């Protein structure tokens, strides 16, 4: 790719930082009390992004598959843990369930895209693998936390119905599959909604970035389409996995609803 874009210097960054003064001024004028948080948030954003910039610069020069895969695994693990941390309830093994689901879903989808669709050489080229994995992970994480949350809250809210069905001779699947389906549906809704309005209401950040960096808009759009399909598949697989694993934990082989395994998350 030619680099026919204007590189931004530190001086220009400092100029951009002046824009935060708009927020600070507004906060001061209206006594919103946000001044301190605004400055901390702005500082954190700058430091975190600059750091990740250096990390990526280093990472993209790596030619060792093991290093790239190790980084990918760390990203996956963080996504798996964060997905659980966004939900309200815990049971033994919930983190493993989330990790396993995120890992399987993102590995299958990203692997297929790298090797089958884009056919990157070598397959682990970090310039492609890391950003694409990141996009898939971010969305799978959202889907998993939504789906898991809905499944657990649904079981609690519908406990009487599930147990009534069990008492009438239902298998655990007959008693709880409505909750499983509902949770998977709720987890998928944001992905479907965002695909609906894509390009009309929202211009995806990745595509915008590629265009700014000088890529042909048609090429950028094609990448975006591939990414969106990856995201949709990754989220679906991840939600399906995590909800099914939670179902197997909370509905025992003896066809019992084991809500006693659940506890509130400690904050």
């Amino acid at each position: 790719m030619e680099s026919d874009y204007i590189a931004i210097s530190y001086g220009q960054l400092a100029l951009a930082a002046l824009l935060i003064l708009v927020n600070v001024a507004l906060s001061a004028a209206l006594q919103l009390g946000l001044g301190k948080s605004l400055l901390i948030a702005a500082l954190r954003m700058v430091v975190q992004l600059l750091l990740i910039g250096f990390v990526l610069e280093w990472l993209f020069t790596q030619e060792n598959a093991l290093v790239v895969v190790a980084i990918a695994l760390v990203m996956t693990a963080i996504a798996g843990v964060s997905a659980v941390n966004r939900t309200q309830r815990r049971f033994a093994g919930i983190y493993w369930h989330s990790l396993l689901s995120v890992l399987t879903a993102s590995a299958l989808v990203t692997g297929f895209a790298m090797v089958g669709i884009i056919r990157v050489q070598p397959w682990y080229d970090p310039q492609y693998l890391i950003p694409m994995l990141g996009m898939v992970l971010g969305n799978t994480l959202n889907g998993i936390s939504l789906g898991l949350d809905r499944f657990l809250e649904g079981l609690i809210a519908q406990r009487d119905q599930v147990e009534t069905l069990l008492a009438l001779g239902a298998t655990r699947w007959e008693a709880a599959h409505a909750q499983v389906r509902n949770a998977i549906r709720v987890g998928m809704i944001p992905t479907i909604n965002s695909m609906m309005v894509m390009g009309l209401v929202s211009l995806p950040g990745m595509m915008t970035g590629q265009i700014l960096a000088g890529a042909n808009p048609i090429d950028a759009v094609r990448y975006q389409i591939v990414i969106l399909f990856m995201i949709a598949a990754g989220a679906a697989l991840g939600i399906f996995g995590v909800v099914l694993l939670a179902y197997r934990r909370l509905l025992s082989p003896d066809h019992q609803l084991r809500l006693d395994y659940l506890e509130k998350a400690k904050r």
Partner: protein
Amino acid sequence: MKSSQALLSVEGLGRQLGDRWLWRGVNFELFSGDCVGLVAPSGAGKTLLMRNLVLLDPLQQGEVRLEGKPLSAWSLPAYRSRVMYVPQRATPIGILVSSRVANAARSEFDGTVQDNLKQVFELGVHRQRQFDPDIIHTWLARLGRGPEFLSLQGARLSGGEAQILALLRSLQLDPQVLLLDEPTASLDAATTASVEALLHDWLQHPHRACLMTSHDAEQIHRFTHRQLDLRDFA
């Protein structure tokens, strides 16, 4: 099956909450035609005993046999279709059962009394049976309810109506042992008498038995043949 064999036999059943035993060493047998009252003060674990008998809660101690066979010899759905627990809080099951009608456009609570009665036949364990509107109409008439009861919305039933629904929903599945948790707690005196009469007739068929709780000591003495007092096992 020998005629002297118990339908349901319970040996050494124990239930612990924390490190306190609610009851332990519970032994009893239900024979064909038996109707046993389960008595104990509130909070003594009557409901928990019933939940344990159908394994809605795991057994902590003891053994349960149906027709002489241990629980491990039964598939639990099949066992629960024979030993049926009717909880005190009667819950309409809405359209949760049927995957064909359940969709995003309908709420989970949709479904009439008739839907509720019919849908249990979609469960695998009852699939060889068929919904019988005649017998439901007969039972409803005995309980002083007309056929219009069937078209009421399950989610809008009063406590008493829900209890009638729950009782008929279980009775129509022809269980061998009924575990009734306060079956008439929300019913008026007249309907209570009709329910007792209906259950009395139901018990006349061979290989049927029932265990019931009631806050009404009068009812226990009137309706049951003998009592099992959980205080004896505290």
